[in-house]
């Protein structure tokens, strides 16, 4: 793989480039799912290819191919240069990059149990046991369970002399129970919606999730929701579980701090950001207890955004995003860091495979644990507690959001008093985070994986990490999705 990357670099360097990098990537993945007592998806996939990025004539060019013969790589290298030259037809200024040192490294993410060493029939047996448990409740119409494993090895080489060989192992698993009754569909998922939990781990994650022992409760809740009261509409103190809060962080902090959005380069598709440059170090983003970091280092945890180097060869870093409630930093690339006068990229460029260009993507954007116990977070006279995301939507500058959850509970004097169905809440990003008044401590903090974050044209799907612990927010608008 290293030879392929160096050959590609040699080809473009000989033709004259300001800078170039090549990423040779080999991936292997496995998808296993079950549905109502039978295997659903059973598939394995392998892929290998090269992406060549050049900076020439002041413009970027990028070409990718899975033809790894000499002629295939030569053609891709020539096309990358042709594309860069074509870009001069609409060039306003030459691209400049923040400096980065040369790095040579080999890194493999921690993995206790190689998931590809576990036979498919054992995967299916685990999922079918969960399925049986869910369908033991006769009111469950649809039981689904799944596992996902991916191993990606990437060799990055650049004309700056860097050669970085990284291997990342990602695992994920989860299940859901859906109940259709009398013109209503209710669903519960475990441990999170949209496939469950995903982390930078091996098969040990599946064992840690305790899927089987949680199946009866999830089935029971899915069915009980039909009889629950509709979540009331109004202003309430709101308590969120850590998985929902993880998605809240993703949408209302993670995306707005992407510096490419701020600078307008995502305007046609993903949109821009309310966090214009004049807000840096000035904006009161949240209350004093809100501290958020963007941290790709292994010390932060086994997140989907954990790595040793990003996809332009910049080492993993931790950046303060919100410090004591004040907006403190963006996620950057070498190009955008240079554009705003930062001395160095903070290492957030990631591509979803060999065929795509690296973009600024979330690594692990996490709300740091607070100082409260779980009892203190729930210690409200009257509040609504919501768990597990069901729907999520936010405007294209990341001001106005609305989330729906699978299940809610009315809290009185710190205790759950009744189940609520179809709970939702909405608000304006900075008002919401400034209303944060309690954050549970590190013992309740979970690093969640969002495996399906879309961005870019052509669209890329990326896994991101979000650590959070249950938290309480003061006077939030609840129930608007079903109002009127």
């Amino acid at each position, binding site marked *: 793989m290293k030879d392929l990357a160096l050959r590609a670099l040699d080809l473009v360097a000989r033709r004259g480039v300001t800078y170039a990098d090549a990423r040779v990537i080999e991936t292997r993945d496995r998808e296993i*799912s079950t549905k109502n007592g*039978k*295997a*659903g*998806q*059973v*598939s*394995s*996939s*392998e*892929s290998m290819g090269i992406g060549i990025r050049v900076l020439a004539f002041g*413009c*970027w*060019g990028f070409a*990718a*191919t*899975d033809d790894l013969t000499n002629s295939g790589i030569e053609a891709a290298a020539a*096309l990358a240069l*042709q*594309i860069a030259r*074509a*870009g001069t*037809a*609409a060039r306003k*200024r030459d691209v400049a990059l923040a400096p980065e040192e040369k790095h040579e490294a080999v890194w493999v993410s921690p993995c206790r149990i190689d998931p590809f060493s576990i*036979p*498919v*029939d054992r995967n*299916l047996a685990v999922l079918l046991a969960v399925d049986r448990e869910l369908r033991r409740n006769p009111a469950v119409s649809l039981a689904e369970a799944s596992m996902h494993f991916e191993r990606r090895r990437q060799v990055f080489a650049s004309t700056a002399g860097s050669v970085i060989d990284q291997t990342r192992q990602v695992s994920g698993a989860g299940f859901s129970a*859906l*109940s*259709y009754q009398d013109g*209503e*569909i209710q669903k519960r998922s475990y441990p999170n919606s949209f496939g469950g939990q995903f982390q930078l781990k091996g098969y040990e994650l599946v064992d840690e999730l305790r899927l089987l022992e949680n199946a009866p409760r999830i089935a029971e809740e899915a069915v009980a929701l039909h009889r629950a009261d509709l979540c009331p509409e109004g202003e309430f103190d709101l308590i969120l579980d850590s998985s929902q809060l993880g998605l809240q962080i993703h949408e209302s902090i993670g995306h707005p701090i992407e510096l490419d959005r701020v600078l307008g*380069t*995502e*305007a*046609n*598709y993903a*949109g821009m950001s*309310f966090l214009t440059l004049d807000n840096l170090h000035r904006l009161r983003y949240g209350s004093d207890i809100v501290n958020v970091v963007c941290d790709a280092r292994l010390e932060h945890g086994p997140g989907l955004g954990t790595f040793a180097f990003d996809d332009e060869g910049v080492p993993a870093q931790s950046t303060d995003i919100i410090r004591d409630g004040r907006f403190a930093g963006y996620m950057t690339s070498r190009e955008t860091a240079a554009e705003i006068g930062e001395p160095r990229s903070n290492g957030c460029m990631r591509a979803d495979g060999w*065929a*795509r*260009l690296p973009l600024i993507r979330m690594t692990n954007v996490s709300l740091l644990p607070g100082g409260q116990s779980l009892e203190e977070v729930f210690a409200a006279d009257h509040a609504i507690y919501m768990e597990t995301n*069901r729907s999520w*939507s936010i405007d*294209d*500058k990341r*001001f*106005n959001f*609305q989330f*729906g959850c699978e299940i809610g509970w009315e809290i009185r004097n710190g205790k759950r008093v009744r189940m609520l169905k179809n709970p*939702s809440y*909405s608000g*304006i990003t900075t008002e919401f985070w400034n209303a944060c008044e309690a954050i549970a401590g590190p013992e309740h903090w979970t690093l969640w994986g969002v495996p399906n974050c879309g961005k870019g*044209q*052509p669209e890329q799907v990326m896994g991101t990490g979000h650590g959070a612990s249950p938290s309480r927010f003061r006077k939030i608008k609840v129930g608007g*999705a*079903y109002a*009127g």
Partner: protein
Amino acid sequence: MRDNAHRIFEQVADAARASGVTEVEAIISTEHQALTRFANNTIHQNVAERGTHLSVRPVIGGRTARASTNRLDADSIREVVEQAIAITRLTEPDPELPPLASPAEYRDVERRFEATARATPEERALAVAEAIGVVEGAGQTAAGIYSTEESGFALLNSRGVAAVHQETMARFSITAMGSDSSGWAKASACCHGDLDPVQLALAASRKAAVSRAPRELPPGRYTVVLEPAAVLDLVGQMFADFSATAIRDGRSFLNDRIGRKIFGDNITIYDDVWHHAQAGPAFDGEGVPRKRLILVERGVVRDIASCRQAAVLAGTEPTGHGFPLPNEIGEAPVNIVIAGGDSSVDAMVRSTDRGILVTRLWYIREVDPYAKIFTGMTRDGTFLIEGGRVTAGLRNFRFNQSLIEMLSSVEALSAPVRASGEETFDMVAPAMKVAGFHFTEVTRF
């Protein structure tokens, strides 16, 4: 592509036979895609990718599984076949698993254009430069994409199925931005010569100019005129439910609603792969020829897509809308044509005393799966209509709207066009004038 696909399939079948397996299917797909992306009035990302993909599915005693690779040398093909057979043998037999599909006649659709397949980076860059010039000339900032791609899809199996489809596709999308406003336009076509980037740039620029200094209206129920892209991105969210498997699973809003009138008399929707403005192959992921479906006829839910397994269970015929096996979701219609009316966006605006004109919708997500309530935002061109004309731009709204209620409240439709958005796949859709559309919040811009 056809010859190459047959050559690859012969190797797949040989490798399967060597392992004692005679029932095998292969899907070979190819893609050559290039995209020129611009923002801040300059080209900033400019990419191309080329790839080929082979996936293999044996059927062994009622068992099946799939293995895939993008390496097509002889050893890699043999290895992927062996992998597919190995994991298939580890699954449990499924008595409902259909056998491999049998050969069928496929009516040709011509959707590959040589000029689009050969479009160059220079062609795209020059068209982009011209479009940027239009927007920049109006004192605005442009962002967008111009993409061209060529793709191929072949499904072959050991029972003699050999379905092959090739097509090209081009997309141009542009956002024009003023200091406090924006406008957007997008189009797609199998032939890139059918796109007019300058006209799209002019349309986006006009919207940005007219929506300057946007006013804020309170949330509430308003008459709206939804342009085709807004209709497609919202109405397009419901078609996965026109699926026999989704209904059987209890996850479709059409449970207990088949044959019932749930929309207005003026709503008729087809699935029609042969419509001149449609794209895609005339066969499905199982190798079954697509049939034309009348999904909704004058407000009544009629046809439902069925894969082969769902058809057997229901005692009907498959409709040619199945996804490659094995999968959990079964099937869905993907060539949607929403019948239109004799109105136009201009006529709808003229007939509206007070209402809101919507260019596009964004970040649409399902709030309630059975009431079919969706939330989302307006974006890039939201206008106040007063006294039959557009009088101002508006700050963007959040909506929470039931599709059942919306499609029962349509007062006028335009002629349908091939519409392209960002929230669902391209469809043929009209503009719609809708009474009582439910905006629940207003954002800050």
